[in-house]
């Protein structure tokens, strides 16, 4: 791959539109080429900037009510229920205040935001995943899934385990997922909260799956909620994640878009590895 070819692909790379293999090839080039890496960072920064500056737009006061009122009356329930289904995210919640008297709308909005914040905290505490940890899991997975920042490209779990153990200064077991249809792509050390973990990228049924494995002797983090069945399925930032304790008692994590049940099969293999 030369730089000219790379420049054309960086946009799709940043937008996660490249197939995994192409993404991995491009990532390798980025590691070796500061100029292309700088282009990639600029592209990523601009994307982030546009999103951060354009996403937060409040609906004009009373607009939602006016739109509803403009719809033909006979079938009023149809668009409300189907064409415009309720979206239960915080951002659109400000629409709900449209019909309230103006003097109360600010107060109601503040109360709604407060309620959502409390509800969010409850959801997190119930799932047992701290927001910072969830953020780290998903962000690292997203980077590895694009083939970005992999320290080693390796399909042999034993070689990857040796590489990670040397990097961590302590043994890091790397599960062999081939019996479950998983192909290893590569590995890297990464930081979850304050502790280093081995991160191993696999491809299972065409989907990237990242396993986060602590080196031996590490303090457990996020162990709450791993029940007698030995694993805990959660949703983190729109992705599926599971945590489990491996044979050493280390708390591991996996993140992917695969269904939880499929991930459970993977966990079963991984949990048995030493």
């Amino acid at each position: 791959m030369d730089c000219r070819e790379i420049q054309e692909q960086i946009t799709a790379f940043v937008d996660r539109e490249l197939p995994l293999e192409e993404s991995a090839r491009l990532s390798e080039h980025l590691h070796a080429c500061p100029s292309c890496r700088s282009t990639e960072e600029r592209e990523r920064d601009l994307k982030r900037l546009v999103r951060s500056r354009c996403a937060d737009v409040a609906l004009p006061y009373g607009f939602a009510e006016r739109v509803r009122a403009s719809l033909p009356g006979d079938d009023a329930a149809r668009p409300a229920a189907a064409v415009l289904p309720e979206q239960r995210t915080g951002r659109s919640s400000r629409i709900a205040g449209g019909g309230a008297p103006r003097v109360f709308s600010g107060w109601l909005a503040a109360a709604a935001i407060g309620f959502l914040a409390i509800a969010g905290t409850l959801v997190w505490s119930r799932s047992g995943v701290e927001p910072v940890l969830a953020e780290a899991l998903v962000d690292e997975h997203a980077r590895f899934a694009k083939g970005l920042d992999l320290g080693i490209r390796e399909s042999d779990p034993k070689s990857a385990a040796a590489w990670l153990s040397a990097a961590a200064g302590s043994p890091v077991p790397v599960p062999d997922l081939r019996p479950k249809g998983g192909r290893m792509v590569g590995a890297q050390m990464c930081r979850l909260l304050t502790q280093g973990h081995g991160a191993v990228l696999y491809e299972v049924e065409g989907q990237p799956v990242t396993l986060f494995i602590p080196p031996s002797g590490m303090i457990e983090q996020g162990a709450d909620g791993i029940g007698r069945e030995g694993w805990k399925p959660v949703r983190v930032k729109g992705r599926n994640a599971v945590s489990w304790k491996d044979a050493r008692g280390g708390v591991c994590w996996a993140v992917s878009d695969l269904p939880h049940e499929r991930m459970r099969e993977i966990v079963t293999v991984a949990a048995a590895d030493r």
Partner: protein
Amino acid sequence: MHLGPLYRTALRLTGNDADAQDLVQETVLRAFRFFDSFEPGTNCRAWLFRILMNTFVNEYRKRVRGPQQVDLDETTMGTLESRADQAIVSLPATPEEVVSAGMLDGDLKEGLRALPPEFRAAVLLCDVEEFSYKEIAEMTQVPVGTVMSRIHRGRRALREFLLRRRRAKPVRALSAGA
């Protein structure tokens, strides 16, 4: 409701609140009228955005296009891009550095407004609404490759605009940071 995302996109496409409200209202009315064409189980949000884009291109732009609104064609985009390349070479700042140097929200919005509507729409649908290239291609009825090209070139032109702004306001930026 999906009104929030529809409205913010309409606002950036049209550039003003009144036109954005008209565009969204027309979109919702059409969605209501053509509800039978919606396939249950498919992405409702993408379907609504497709109607928004159709309405914008077929009705709204024809109606409001005045002599002061000049569409930049592909050649103009080529010129913009070439200037962007030069600016990037001479001033390799990231957009975040531009922000830290005192860039105002207005600069970014102005930069977006300066893009041809097709390029602006592609960037917004991708970066803000997080639609895939395939979904954007279906919404705007162009090939996926065209979507990628519009996003790529749109971002480059936007970056060039921000860098020019930064160069035009160095004293202000420094004093703002002091």
